[in-house]
């Protein structure tokens, strides 16, 4: 070992006493590359910069890479055979062309065929108000103002609800209670941004039951879209509703930022992903869409 380390040491010393750094050379001005002043080049550079600001994407070329809904379902049902249907869902990943630092798409959606229905809503509203009455009749699991704050503080890790909405009259009380630390990480803190502060508790609750929230992350929106036992028709309606809702969101943001849908990928809990081509019928005419709705 000693010999190698000695050798290394000498080597290191050699490399340390390197030649002095060359002084900054001055290139004559006429030899330096001229800056492109043309308009065309400027535009090109801008476009390149714009591209750099966007999340990367690649458009499917369409030669055998895209599938009709029934084909994709056939593969996915084969991949999920023998799994308990309660633990398997169809999911959709929607790739969007978007800049990295712009506003993101985020909204709630009500599917014609809800995926699962375990929404339990808590309502923060002034005690004894009309809103409280609405919450009680609407089937909220917890409601009130001070009693709710106590409840949240006491068993923060075992809350009876998984959605929380707030009446506009209680917002100041909520902000004073300082629950942001408890509710924030759970994503339950009511705010205007998440569209959970309302004047009408009744309509908001009706909207929320069976509704799913989605948001864009790194240029993709993912959402569970159906139970594995859904028929192709049910699933297609859910997909259609979802895409329409996204398109509406995009057109609403048009003045601030422009986004495009690039591809729609159908997948399942344990299955591969299939880019949809918008078609419905299976390519194999021996398979009827009704065959894709049998018990799993």
């Amino acid at each position, binding site marked *: 070992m000693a010999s190698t380390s000695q050798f290394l040491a000498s080597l290191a010393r050699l490399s340390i006493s390197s030649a002095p750094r060359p002084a900054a050379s001055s290139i004559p001005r006429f030899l330096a590359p001229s800056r492109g002043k043309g308009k065309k080049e400027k535009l090109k550079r801008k476009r390149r910069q714009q591209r750099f600001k966007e999340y990367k994407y690649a458009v499917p070329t369409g030669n055998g890479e895209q599938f009709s809904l029934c084909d994709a379902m056939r593969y996915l049902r084969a991949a999920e055979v*023998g799994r308990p249907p309660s633990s398997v869902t169809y999911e959709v990943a929607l790739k969007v062309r978007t800049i990295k630092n712009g506003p993101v798409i985020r909204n709630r959606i009500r599917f014609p065929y809800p995926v699962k229905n375990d929404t339990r809503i808590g309502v923060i509203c002034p005690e004894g108000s009309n809103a409280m009455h609405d919450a009680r009749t609407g089937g909220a699991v917890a409601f009130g103002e001070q009693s709710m704050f106590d409840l949240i503080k006491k068993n923060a890790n075992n809350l009876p609800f998984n959605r929380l909405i707030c009446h506009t009259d209680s917002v100041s009380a909520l902000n004073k209670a300082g629950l942001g630390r408890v509710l924030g990480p759970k994503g339950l803190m009511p705010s205007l941004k998440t569209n959970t502060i309302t004047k009408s508790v009744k309509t908001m609750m009706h909207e929320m039951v069976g509704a799913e929230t989605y948001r864009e992350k790194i240029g993709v929106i993912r959402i569970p879209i159906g139970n594995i036992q859904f028929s192709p028709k049910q699933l297609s309606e859910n997909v259609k509703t979802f895409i329409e809702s996204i398109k509406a969101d995009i057109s609403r943001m048009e003045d601030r930022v422009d986004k495009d849908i690039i591809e729609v990928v159908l997948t399942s809990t344990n299955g591969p992903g299939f880019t949809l081509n918008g078609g419905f019928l299976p390519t194999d005419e021996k398979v009827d869409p009704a065959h894709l709705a049998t018990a799993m």
Partner: protein
Amino acid sequence: MVNPGKRMNILKTLLNLRHGPGAAILPPEISRLHMDFALRWNDGHMGPRKFWKTCLPRLKFWNPAVPMIINRSSNNAGPATLSIYFRQAAAAAAGPTTPAGSAPKVNFITPLAQQPHSSTANECPAPPPEEGERVVTIEMKHQHSDAILQDFLQKTGATVLQPSPDELNEMRQAEDLKDRAAIDRSIMKKYIDDKRAEERLLARAREEAEAIRLANQ
């Protein structure tokens, strides 16, 4: 989401979902399949598990209308059986024009929520045969999945599918891609290993130099 080119290479494995052991078309008189075995593989429950994982997806792909229910329990001492439900000749003759279309008819009578479904908590044991049905069972305990498949094919009289020349070609390409990937990986590993070794050497040299400098002071 991975880019489409990359994902396409993964989708090549869809061929695996179509062709391989278990790619067979069942005769129309088979109404459903039911498998019953344990969650864990001890005591001879490995064969059924492998049959489920390797063969059943292909069977399901080629016979999408046939319900295939898997009921697993935590009881390893229990039996591992595969039940094949045959429609009797009279029932099968009822819909001879659309043999494939008539397959799920039996199960459309009851709503989907009440039908037996796959379970990991022994919720849906093999149902008794309905009227005009006959059951054939295969004992799967302590059996290899290949043996189970052979027995299954023989008892059902299924027609085994062979990949077409095009698909064979595609399979070969996928295989080539895999080999090429292995070579590329080894090249990359060597490059990274060399780089790391060099870095280590330099770091050690720098340390020694520092030590000598301190000693000289």
